[in-house]
C-alpha cells in the first residue's frame, strides 16, 4: 500500500511540472505506461543504491542458485547476482534506446521537415534515399557496422538509430506536408517570416505531439533490438550486463536455471510494455482533435 502511494506522489510531482505529462497521466493507459517507464528510469538512475551487488561482482554464493532471500532472482552461471545485473542492465537498455532515438531524430528531423516543407527536388531526393534505406535489411547493416567498428553498445545504438531514420523521415515529412498547408503558415509568410523561422517556430512546434508518440514507439523498439543484437553478439559485450547479454548467456542453462532467462526477459517485456502504453496514452492525450 505504501509503495503505491510513493509511486503516486512521484508521478504527481513530475506531472505538475509538464503539461504534456499531465495530459498523459490523465489517460488511464498512459498513466500505467508512465508508471512503468518512470520505474525503469528510476531503477537505472538509482542502480548503485538499489543493486545489492556489483554488476560483475562474483558473490560467494554458488553458481546457478535459484531465487532466495539473499539473491531474490537467483545467481547466474558465474555466481553473480541476477537481480543486480538486471538493475545495472537497465542502464544499458536505456542508454542504447535514448542514444539510438536521439540519433534517429537528429538525422530525420531536419531532412523530413525540409523535404515536406520545401517539396520539389529536395523532397524527391530525400524520399528516394528513404526508399533505399527501407529496402536495406537491418541485420546486414548491424553486422556490417560491427564488422567495421567492432561490437559495442555505442555501435549497436548507431545501427539501431540509422535503421529507424527512413521511417522517421517519412513520418516527419508527412506531418510537415500537412502543416505547410495550414492558414497560419500562409499568414506568417504574409507577415514576412523566412523559411528557417517558419520551420522552427511554426512547423516544428505543431508536429511535436506526433514526435512524442514516435519516440515512445522508437524507445521500446530500440530496447528490444539492443537485446537482439546483444543476443547475437553484435551489441554489448560480456561481462557488461545488458538484458540481451543475459538472455544469451541463459540459453545454455534453460533447463537447469530457467530464472536466468525468465527475469531479463520479463524486464525487457515490462520496459517495452511501459513505453508502448505510454505511446498509446500520448497518442490519445495529445491528439488535438480530442483535446480541443
Amino acid at each position: 500500500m505504501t509503495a503505491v502511494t510513493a509511486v503516486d506522489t512521484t508521478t504527481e510531482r513530475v506531472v505538475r511540472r509538464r503539461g504534456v505529462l499531465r495530459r498523459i497521466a490523465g489517460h488511464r493507459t498512459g498513466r500505467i505506461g508512465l508508471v512503468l517507464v518512470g520505474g525503469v528510469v528510476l531503477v537505472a538512475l538509482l542502480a548503485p543504491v538499489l543493486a545489492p551487488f556489483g554488476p560483475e561482482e562474483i558473490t560467494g554464493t554458488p553458481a546457478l542458485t535459484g531465487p532466495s532471500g539473499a539473491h531474490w532472482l537467483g545467481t547466474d552461471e558465474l555466481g553473480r547476482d541476477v537481480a543486480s545485473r538486471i538493475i545495472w542492465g537497465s542502464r544499458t537498455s536505456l542508454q542504447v534506446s535514448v542514444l539510438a532515438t536521439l540519433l534517429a531524430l537528429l538525422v530525420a528531423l531536419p531532412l523530413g521537415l525540409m523535404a515536406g516543407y520545401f517539396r520539389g527536388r529536395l523532397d524527391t531526393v530525400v524520399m528516394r534515399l528513404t526508399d533505399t534505406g527501407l529496402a536495406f535489411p537491418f541485420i546486414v547493416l548491424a553486422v556490417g557496422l560491427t564488422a567495421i567498428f567492432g561490437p559495442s553498445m555505442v555501435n549497436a545504438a548507431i545501427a539501431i538509430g540509422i535503421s529507424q531514420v527512413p521511417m522517421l523521415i517519412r513520418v516527419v515529412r508527412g506531418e510537415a506536408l500537412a502543416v505547410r498547408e495550414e492558414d497560419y503558415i500562409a499568414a506568417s509568410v504574409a507577415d514576412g517570416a523566412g523559411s528557417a523561422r517558419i520551420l522552427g517556430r511554426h512547423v516544428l512546434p505543431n508536429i511535436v505531439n506526433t514526435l512524442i508518440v514516435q519516440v515512445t514507439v522508437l524507445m521500446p523498439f530500440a530496447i528490444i533490438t539492443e537485446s537482439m543484437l546483444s543476443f547475437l553478439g553484435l551489441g554489448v559485450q560480456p561481462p557488461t550486463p545488458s538484458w540481451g547479454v543475459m538472455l544469451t548467456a541463459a540459453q545454455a542453462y534453460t533447463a537447469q536455471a530457467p530464472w536466468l532467462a525468465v527475469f531479463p526477459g520479463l524486464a525487457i517485456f515490462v520496459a517495452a510494455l511501459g513505453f508502448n502504453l505510454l505511446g498509446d496514452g500520448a497518442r490519445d492525450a495529445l491528439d488535438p482533435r480530442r483535446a480541443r
Partner: protein
Amino acid sequence: MTPVLEVDGLSVGFRSDDGEVLALDDVSLRVEPGEIVGVVGESGCGKSTLGLSIMGLLPGSASVRGGGVRLGGRDLLTLPPGELRRLRGSEVGMIFQEPMSSLNPVMPVGRQIGEVLRRHRDLGRTAAAARAVELLDLVGIPDAGRRSRAYPHQLSGGMRQRVMIAIAIACEPKLLIADEPTTALDVTVQAQILDLLRSLRDRVDLAIMLITHNLGVIATMADRVSIMYAGRKVEEGPTRDILDTPRHPYTARLLASTPQAARSAAVSAAAGGPGGSVEAGGRRLAEIPGRVPTMTAPATACTFQARCHRDVDLCTRVRPELEPAGGGLVACFHPEESW
C-alpha cells in the same frame, strides 16, 4: 501625394491542366494614403489573386504576365525575395478570411504578435511582449495583458481576427490588405471588426484595400470601389456613385441580387442618410443567370456579354475598355443610364 499602392495593368496567369487560365487581365488600381478601397466581385473573379500578387504570395503555378505593382513608389515585382520579405508585415500587412485557422495553435497570441516586431523592428523579447500588449489593447481586446498569454483556441473568432489585425498593423504599415476579413464571423462581430478597421484608418492613417463579395460591407466602409468580373475590372468609382447609379450591367445586377434589406441599408449608408426602410420579405431575389467564364486568353469581347440582359452584336466582337463615366470608370458600350 504619392499613392500608397499603384497596380498598373497587372495580368496574372495560372498554369492548369487545360492550359493557362488568366486570373487577372490588365487590372489597375490605386490606393491613396488613408483611403479605404473596396474590391468587389463574386468567387473566382480574381480579387484574391490581386491581393496575393501585391504581397508577392502567388502560388508557384501562377505567374505575372505583365503590368506592375508599386508600393510607395517601389516596384514590387522586380524586388529580390529578401527585400520583398522585409516589406511583408512591415510596409504592407494582410489579414485573411479565416481567423480560426490563421493563428499558430501552439503559440500564445502575444508571442505571435511579438514575432513580427522582433523580426522587422529588432525589438528584444521583453520589448516585443510589452508592445504586443499595447497592440492588443489598440485593437480593442479587453484585459490585454492576460489575453496576450492566451492560446488561439481560448479566444473567440472575433478576438482572433482582432489578433490578426494586431499582427498586421504591428509594424505600422501604410497599407493593409484585408481579404474577406469578416466573412467567417457572426454579423454582430462583423460590424465590430469593420468599426475597428475604420477607427484604425482614422487613428494611424492606414490605407486599406478591402477585398469582399459583400456590398453591404463596401457601403459602410469603402471610399472608392472597384467591381471585378472574370479577371477584369469592369467598373470603378466613388462608393456612393456606384451603389446609387451603377453603370455596368454586372454591377447593377449584382446590386439587384443583394437582399433588399442589406441593399437599402447599403445605399442609405452610402448616401449618409438615415437607415433605409426594410422591405418586407417574400420577393424572390433577382439572380444573374449563367456563370463566370474561365478566361484562358485576354478577352476579345465583353466578358459579361453572355450573361448580360442586353444582346448587342458589338459586345460579342469588341472588348469594351474602361471609359470615364460619371465620377468613375466603366467598361461597357451601353452603360446603364440610371438605376
